[in-house]
């Protein structure tokens, strides 16, 4: 039951360029989406989120875009830095539920100097 999917297990980009991480979902009840960053042996760290009433949210180098009709969201990192190298998880939740997050499988981003 993969309600949230990240189809790219890995992504490699050059320092300074744009990183684009993608996420698809199937459950129409999801109305809030989050991106988490995770380093090995650490817990997920909240990065940025977006409500379904918006189609874009920006925070510094990070921007999340939401396309509700396509049930697709993406995280853009510009410019990418070597310290951004980590696993990025997309997560979704529905206001009607108890707050549980449904995570995608994650995308490992490597930013090369």
């Amino acid at each position, binding site marked *: 039951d993969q309600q949230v999917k990240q189809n790219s297990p890995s992504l490699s980009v050059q320092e300074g360029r744009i990183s684009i991480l993608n996420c698809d979902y199937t459950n129409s009840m999801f109305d809030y989406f*989050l991106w988490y960053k995770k380093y090995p042996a650490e817990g997920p760290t909240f990065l940025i989120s977006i409500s379904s009433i918006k189609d874009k949210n920006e925070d510094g180098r990070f921007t999340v875009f939401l396309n509700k009709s396509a049930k697709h969201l993406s995280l853009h990192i510009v410019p990418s830095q070597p310290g951004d190298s980590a696993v990025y998880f997309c997560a979704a939740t529905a206001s009607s539920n108890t*707050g*549980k*997050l449904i*995570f*995608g499988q994650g995308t490992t981003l490597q930013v090369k100097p």
Partner: protein
Amino acid sequence: EPEVTQTPSHQVTQMGQEVILRCVPISNHLYFYWYRQILGQKVEFLVSFYNNEISEKSEIFDDQFSVERPDGSNFTLKIRSTKLEDSAMYFCASNGLGYNEQFFGPGTRLTVL
């Protein structure tokens, strides 16, 4: 900056033994969660907890699992009789009233031998 803490960082146990994983959520948060991540897989929801009772639990959270908030600060996950397949990273998370963003602890690595 307030953070979620978890102890121990690593727990090794024999199959069939009971383990208790401990978490101290962020002090003014009201919603508490446990998630787990089996090596190489996605982060999975186990249980949500609010107002001193379970709000929702996943299929994974069977009768071997229980949660408790024994005092005003700790939030525990107990596994009564561990199985080999319980080996995973266990993450505690919390969020405040009106916020969807959950903040995660660093995790406890549980190894069942």
